[in-house]
């Protein structure tokens, strides 16, 4: 299918032998905003890294455009990555550069635009995230939420075709959250890009995304448009959408029985 810019096909991956993903299938149609949701530690960030080619799948493949990511050589991978922008979970701003230079970084590295043009572009991107006034601050002088917004401006600096947002809402106040939602939507439509949003925030996400994947236990547990999922009777989805504590989604990392763990100290 050609209208899917990113496709994940029967993907398995694990760190150090412990399999994290066990055959995931997802497709991301061009021009849409797709959310990936799942519990903490369910491997959402890892999926983004696999799409970016920073990790190699154990089985299956990720295709971007028509290219299988893990089969690309060094140069082709670089070419592929230039089509992507990624907002990292912790921002990952360059701490030795100012806000302005952080946003200008991809432009300086990949284009030979004149300084005046770079300046205009940086101002535009910073204005979009409401931080034009903070351009001269160092990256270390920002609050967590501000850093996330600058990182967002940096991620879209080169107008990528695929934008990946890892937890764009964490640490934002409700107003900025709304602003960022609109921003993601506007950027997506203005650039004709495709957006992947990893988030926990069901309410916000459902308000603006086109499609949602739920990841649990290493597989896609549910998928659909927000409207479909709201109506879903799957206990798992129901629990997640309504934020209930009791239900099939485990809060705990796989562990032996709690009671036995607690008692073990006394046995010895």
């Amino acid at each position, binding site marked *: 299918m050609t209208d899917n810019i990113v496709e994940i096909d029967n993907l398995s991956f694990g760190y150090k032998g412990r399999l994290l993903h066990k055959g995931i299938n997802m497709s991301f149609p061009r021009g849409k905003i797709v959310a990936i949701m799942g519990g903490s530690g369910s491997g959402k960030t890892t999926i983004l*890294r696999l799409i*970016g080619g*920073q990790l190699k799948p154990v089985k299956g493949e990720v295709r971007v455009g028509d290219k299988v990511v893990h089969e690309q050589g060094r140069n082709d991978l*670089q*070419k592929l*990555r*230039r089509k*992507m922008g*990624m907002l*990292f*979970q*912790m921002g*990952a*701003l*360059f*701490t*030795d550069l100012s806000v302005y230079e952080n946003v200008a*970084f*991809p432009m300086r*590295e*990949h284009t030979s635009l004149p300084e005046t043009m770079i300046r205009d572009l940086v101002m535009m991107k910073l204005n979009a995230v409401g931080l034009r006034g903070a351009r001269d601050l160092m990256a270390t002088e920002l609050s967590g939420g501000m850093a996330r917004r600058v*990182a967002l401006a940096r991620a879209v600096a080169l107008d990528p075709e695929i934008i990946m947002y890892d937890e764009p809402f964490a640490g934002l106040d409700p107003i900025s959250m709304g602003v960022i939602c609109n921003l993601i939507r506007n950027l997506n439509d203005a650039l004709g890009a495709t957006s992947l949003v990893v988030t926990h925030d069901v309410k916000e996400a459902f308000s603006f995304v086109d499609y949602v994947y739920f990841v649990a236990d290493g597989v896609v547990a549910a998928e659909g448009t927000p409207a479909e999922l709201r109506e879903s009777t799957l206990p798992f989805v129901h629990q997640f959408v309504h934020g209930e504590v009791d239900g099939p989604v485990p809060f705990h990392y796989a562990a032996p029985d709690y009671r036995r763990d607690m008692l073990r100290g006394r046995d010895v």
Partner: protein
Amino acid sequence: MSSKAVSKLASALQNFGHRLIDQFWRLGSASRLFGYTLASSGESLRRPFLVIREIYFTGVLSLIIILVSAFFVGMVLALQGYNTLQKYGSSEAIGVLVALSLVRELGPVVTALLFAGRAGTAITAEIGLMKATEQLSAMEMMAVSPIARVIAPRFWGGVISMPLLASLFSMVGILGGYLVAVPLIGVDGGAFWSQMQASVDFREDVMNGFIKSCVFGVACTMIALFEGYDAPPTAEGVSRATTRTVVNSSLAVLGLDFVMTSFMIS
């Protein structure tokens, strides 16, 4: 021997073997990083400001500690040397003693040790933190190679700074020695310089010292970069890596110094 002791010994041996293999493994990855760094150097040398910036952080910011230490080392050398030489009635040779010890050994070696403590730790901590905060990952995702953009400029910054720092160390040390020997003790100034010039050879002493400092520059900077790049991305990992930078750089400097000296003297 009880079986407990045997198993203890076995586990100690196993532990030792494991660490040995680990070290070889690390040596291998360090060499690979070195190779990549050299291969990516063209890219970063084409943008001189990247390297200039690193010369500023490693070289210029190390100046104070290097100059002050050099001055004191020179003065102490002159004081100690004078005490001994005077017994043999050749206190004019003090200039020779100060200059030769500095140019041949102390200049390159002490500079490299101070460099490891001042600039090396800073490099390791910076790279380690960049890794821990995903800055290197982010760079990779922007299709920018962290080795070309972050590692290579720092490498060349260190390699260029070290011989300059070592030359300054030797020169300032000799000035310190001069100040103690001539105005303070009263050795003849003319004899101080002329005996020094007669005995210090450009090729054998000055050049060899320079070569040593270049080699130390490569070793210290590369160790600092590797430890940072290889550090586990946690606060503890970075702090351990910083310690390892100082220990490994110092050992490397002293070991290389012995090897090079034995080649240069023969």
